[in-house]
C-alpha cells in the first residue's frame, strides 16, 4: 500500500501504515524527494505511530529518507516511535543517529517550523 503524503503549508507529512513493506519505503523515498522539489517543501515529518516493528531494513530506509530530505533542503523528523518499538530497536542495536526524532506529530511539526523559521530569519 503506498504511503500517503499530505501537504501542510510548506511541510510534507507522511503517515506510515501498519503493514509496511520494503517496497512502500523505497517508493516513499522517491516520492518525498520528488515532492520536496515540486512543492518547494521546507520540512518533512514521517509519522511511524502505527508501526509495531521497525526492523533493520526499515531503520536503514528511514535514515536514508531523512538524509535525502536534508540534502534536498528540507528539515526531516521521524515521529511516533512507540515505546516497545524503541526498546526492541535498542535491543537489536538499531539507531537513528543523525536523524531528528520527536514524540508525536504535533511535536514534529513544531520542531520543523522552529528550524525553518530560524533559517528564514538568517536569510
Amino acid at each position, binding site marked *: 500500500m503506498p504511503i500517503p503524503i499530505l501537504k501542510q503549508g510548506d511541510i510534507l507529512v507522511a503517515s506510515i501504515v501498519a503493514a509496511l513493506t520494503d517496497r512502500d519505503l523505497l517508493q516513499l523515498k522517491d516520492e518525498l524527494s520528488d515532492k520536496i522539489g515540486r512543492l518547494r517543501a521546507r520540512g518533512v515529518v514521517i509519522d511511524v505511530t502505527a508501526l509495531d*516493528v521497525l526492523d533493520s531494513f526499515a531503520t536503514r530506509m528511514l535514515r536514508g529518507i531523512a538524509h535525502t530530505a536534508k540534502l534536498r533542503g528540507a528539515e526531516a523528523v521521524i515521529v511516533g516511535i512507540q515505546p516497545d518499538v524503541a526498546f526492541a530497536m535498542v535491543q537489536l542495536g538499531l539507531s537513528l543517529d543523525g536523524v531528528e526524532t520527536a514524540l508525536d506529530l504535533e511535536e514534529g511539526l513544531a520542531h520543523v517550523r522552529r528550524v525553518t523559521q530560524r533559517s528564514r530569519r538568517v536569510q
Partner: protein
Amino acid sequence: MSSETRVAIERETDIVTARQNGRELAAACGFSSTDQTLIALAISELARNIVVYAERGEVVMSTALGDRRGIEIIARDQGPGIQDVELALRDGYSTTKSLGLGLPGARRVMDEFEIDSAPGKGTTITIRKWVR
C-alpha cells in the same frame, strides 16, 4: 488460532505476514507486548534474510513446546547457505549493503538460537523465547 503457523516466504510482503502471524501467536501464548515486539522483530530479520539471500523458504512458528510456555520459530531455506556462520553472527558483518545486525540481533533478543547452514545446502535457523 492454532498453535502452529507456517508462512511461505517468497516475496517481501510475506515478511509482513510472517511477523504479524508471529506476533499474534506470541500474544495468544501470553508474551508481554514488549516481548511480542522483540519476537516480531526477530521474525522480520530472519524472513528478510530468506528473501534477500535465498529468494524462497519458509517460516514455521509454534507454541506447542511441551510444558514450558514459549514460542519456537524455524526459518528454513534451500538457498546458497552461509559461508562463514561465525562471521555472519558478528555485529556489522554483511555480504550485502545491509546493516549486518539482523542475525546477531535476532540471536540477542531471543533466549535460544541455533543455526544449521552449509554452502550449497541452505540454511535453517531455529530461535526460541520463553514466557517469563
